[in-house]
């Protein structure tokens, strides 16, 4: 009788593994850390993320698959892993002073964040629908708790519960989609699905399955009309959690989205590309139009994040190598830019009293010229204004769309990014062109927040002015 030896290759899941181990260490460390030293748990978490990033670097180009083809360490997944690790590290830098000021500095915060990161890495490197689902749930459950982490604040609680209910709802769709696709093709492995579909024609069962998978991803990356939760949850969650969610979840979920649709379902591309194109138009347009009318910065950035998901979806519609690399670049650019913007918003808050209304920013430039400058740069980058990271990202995505014959989609994208300039400039106008509001004096920007902001802004400028190395890395990320 042959003995089945499981195909275990721990090296290719090293980044996720390191993050998980770090989470456990932090959880145990929490027990022995006195209250006034809680910030060390944050530093420990960042250290774990740095080690995980190094592990991902060491795997660069390995292109190894393991666990019977369920997980892969290809450059696509590793690029996303690095993006996710960067976003988590910056978020923690912002969080350490933030959760202290809001008196929610418990070690669990970092544990949950790291657990979510582990789920994200699994999702971005999974090549099997079941493992993708595993990653999806692992990243989502801690986020539901984190969204509700400000227990004293009903809005935070509401955000967590709402996110959880709707997340469960969409997970069910997604799981049912997996079941139907399995029924139609006899496998959940992405490569085998692609092989199976190359030979057989589609079926109604498959179509429903693909539709449900699309809905599942659409919910996680917040595409219209599956975005309803986003403004409420982003608004209610602690600002640092919102910052983290808005970028890292997108990187992980878009990774799996691209992998599943571009790699496993090219045979059905004629169908889903049209649907995705319509979703992209709806998402960009509604996100930007709604953002135009917000008076609250967090809500504005929530709608803005919806719009950005629309831009990235254009890259999926393009379904080309350049589309793939442009999406990776865009996700990285969006990550540093959005974290920079949230970082500046956090930097301008007054201890536990946050300034979230746009009118609260009046005169900030006079009191905190550098923070105001940083926020201006990040908002211009979000608007796709040259020469910042967001501009290059949009140029790459629109270029990929034009190349593959989707010029009209690019045109709508350009129109949308023009509209977006207005609402991104509103806080800038307030900061520079209004008399200072009261209560600015005596606010000090926490050094860790300043550090995160500095890293983010330098990245935003560097990715805009010298994007070539990052583009080269992203271009190497072809899906296996």
């Amino acid at each position, binding site marked *: 009788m042959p003995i089945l030896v499981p195909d275990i290759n721990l090296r290719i899941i090293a980044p996720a593994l390191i993050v998980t181990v770090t989470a456990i260490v932090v959880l145990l460390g929490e027990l022995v850390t006195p209250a006034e030293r809680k910030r060390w748990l944050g530093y420990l978490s960042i250290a774990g993320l740095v080690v995980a990033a190094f592990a991902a670097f060491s795997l660069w180009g390995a292109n190894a698959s393991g666990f019977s083809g369920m997980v892969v360490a290809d450059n696509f997944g590793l690029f996303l892993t690095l993006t996710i690790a960067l976003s988590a590290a910056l978020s923690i830098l912002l969080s350490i002073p933030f959760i202290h000021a809001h008196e929610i500095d418990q070690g669990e915060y970092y544990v949950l964040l790291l657990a979510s990161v582990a789920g994200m890495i699994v999702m971005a490197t999974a090549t099997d629908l079941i493992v993708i689902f595993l990653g999806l749930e692992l990243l989502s459950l801690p986020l539901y708790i984190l969204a509700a982490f400000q227990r004293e604040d009903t809005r935070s609680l509401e955000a967590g519960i709402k996110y959880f209910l709707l997340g469960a709802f969409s997970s069910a769709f997604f799981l049912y989609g997996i079941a139907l696709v399995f029924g139609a093709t006899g496998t959940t492995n992405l490569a085998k699905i692609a092989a199976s579909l190359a030979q057989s024609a589609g079926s109604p069962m498959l179509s429903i399955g693909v539709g449900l998978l699309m809905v599942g991803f*659409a919910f996680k990356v917040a595409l219209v009309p599956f975005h309803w939760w986003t403004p409420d949850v982003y608004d209610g969650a602690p600002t640092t959690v919102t910052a983290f969610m808005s970028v890292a979840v997108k990187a992980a979920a878009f990774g799996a989205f691209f992998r599943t649709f571009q790699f496993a379902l090219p045979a059905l591309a004629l169908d*889903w590309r049209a649907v995705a194109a319509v979703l992209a138009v709806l998402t960009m347009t509604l996100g930007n139009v709604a953002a135009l009318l917000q008076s609250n910065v967090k809500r504005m950035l929530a709608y803005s994040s919806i719009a950005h998901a629309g831009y990235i979806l254009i890259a999926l519609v393009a379904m080309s190598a350049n589309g793939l690399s442009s999406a990776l670049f865009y996700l990285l650019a969006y990550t540093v830019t959005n974290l920079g913007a949230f970082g500046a918003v956090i930097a301008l808050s007054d201890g536990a009293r946050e300034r979230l209304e746009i009118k609260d920013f009046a005169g900030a430039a006079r009191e905190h010229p550098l923070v105001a400058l940083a926020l201006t740069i990040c908002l211009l980058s979000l608007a796709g204004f040259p020469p910042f990271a967001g501009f290059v990202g949009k140029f790459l995505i629109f270029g990929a769309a034009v190349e593959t014959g989707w010029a009209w989609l690019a045109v709508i994208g350009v129109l949308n990014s*023009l509209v977006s300039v207005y609402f991104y400039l509103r806080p800038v106008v307030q900061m520079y062109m209004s008399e200072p509001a009261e209560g600015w004096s005596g606010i000090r920007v926490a050094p860790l927040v300043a550090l995160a902001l500095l890293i983010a802004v330098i990245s935003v400028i560097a990715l805009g002015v*010298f994007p*070539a190395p990052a*583009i080269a890395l992203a271009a190497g990320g072809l899906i296996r």
Partner: protein
Amino acid sequence: MINYLWLVPALPLAGAAINAIFSRKMPRWLVSVLGVGSVGLSFLVALAEFFTVLGAGAQGVFNVSIYSWIPVGNFKIDVAFLLDPLSALMLLGVTGVGFLIHVYSTGYMAEDESYGRFFTYLNLFVFSMLILVLGSNYLLMYVGWALVGLCSYLLISFWFTRPAAAAAGKKAFITTRIGDFGFGLGVILIFVTFGSLNFADVFARAPQMFQLGAPIITTITLLLFAGAVGKSAQLPLYVWLPDAMEGPTPVSALIHAATMVTAGVYMVARSHVLFSLAPFSSEVVAVIGAVTALFAATIALTQMDLKRVLAYSTISQLGYMFLGVGVAAYGAGIFHLMTHAFFKALLFLAAGSVMHAMNGVIDMRQLGGLRSKMRWTYITFFAAALAISGFPLFSGFFSKDEILAQAFESGHIILWAIGLLTAGLTAFYIFRAFFLTFHTQARWTEDEGRKTESRHSPSSVVGHPSFHPHESPASMTVPLAILAVLAVVAGFVGMPSVMGPNFLEGFFAPVFGEAAAAIPAGTEWMLIGASVAVGLIGIGVAYWFYIASPEIPVNLAAQFKGIYTLLWNKYYVDEFYSAVFVEPGRRLAMFLWQVIDVQVIDGFANGLGRAMASFSGALRGWQTGYARAYALLMLVGTVIVIGWLMLR
């Protein structure tokens, strides 16, 4: 020298960066040294580059790649500069006039509390404009194009404490962004058509791939021109420029007269290969230019705000430049761009000097009789007025004459006639402004007691104000004098063939090709005679109306009240736009948002605020209410997605 080309934009950028971060902690003189010095050095490098191009003669086209910017697959875009006679001349204009205006600003802005911020923006603007001019591909040009718009916005709203300034900045930004959308689409279409954005590739491929009048080239050029219409304030997107006068006067001189607003003309000249292939587009450019020239000049006839007269004059003169490039007289268009930069910058700076002396008053109804008080300002304004009127041998005479002659010679008789009429109106309105400001009786009272403090944000003094006007400091009068010399003599580089050699035509040959055959001497003299005649008539009528018999314009205004009111209110275009575009646009956005977001979502649960208030009593109620609504909407979306996938 070509290896140092990067210094030209890098120096102002460094100045802007240092002033942005450290200006609060630096003494004022250091801010000035950095702000002015960086542009001055940049000018010296540009001068050296100019002579490099001049010395290279027909080989004077250099492509300098700085580094690889966006490489994607087989398609790559470099940060690369194109130095040829066209960009070399533009460099001189931007850095040279820019330097003079920076020097002037040290005097003009001396008492402003945001001195460092001002120089930061101004340096950033110079850098952006240089990128626009030097970029050797459409993407880099777009970067400069967008950045100058941003700087213009920042500088128009510089005195943001006044709501008018903030509103004007917003208006400028929004209006020009409409044009930018066209420009962006044009760039996309160029990429789709030629697979490249490099000027060298596009211009080499265009004549090989397309016949004269190919629809795709016509579309591309019209889209590009839409960008120019916004940026260079032509009909129908000119409305932002008069309001832009809310910015500090040096800004009006540099950005809204000498440099940024001419970017559209530069872009058309730079893309002349494409425009030559698109006769229809060129015709559109010429017609819009000519009509704008006339339209804006008529508005300038009645305005009482000196800076507004100059603003409408700028729109009108930009129209001339477009008329030039529209009739394929690219060299003539750029020639007028250059002479206009000198005399219009001078007119604005002189107007600023008047404001400096008159405590911010710029309404001509409260000026008058300043001739003896401000000698330098008076003389330099006079020189500039003669130049813009096309007085023989002054710079505007040569450049305007060349545009009109080329329009006539290419068979655009009607456009030529419009241009000629506009020349007469131009001479009239500028001398009207000149007489009302410096001659006529003083409409203010001498106040011996105090020296008027220098303030520039326009103030409206009611009634009969009293001042003690004084000539401006040397930091302001010296730039005036230098610009005056240039405004007088700069025209001799492009003399008509009957009068002497045309240096500029030969200089531009590597860019625009050999010049067309010379116009017959008889025709040429006839055209010159006509231009000079209408210019002199315009000046004469202005003298007659405002010096000899001042009661005539009052009577005329009363007699033709309808026309006067129409012109005074600038044809009511602003009101029209507000009613037709702005208000409905706001309502549409509001409607979309309310229907989709507020109605659909909040309709289920009456909004977060009320839900919060009823939190204690209705915990379950609001939670499930919200989530159920969302879930239902998601379900609908899911059904649609699946239905579509199945039906295909």
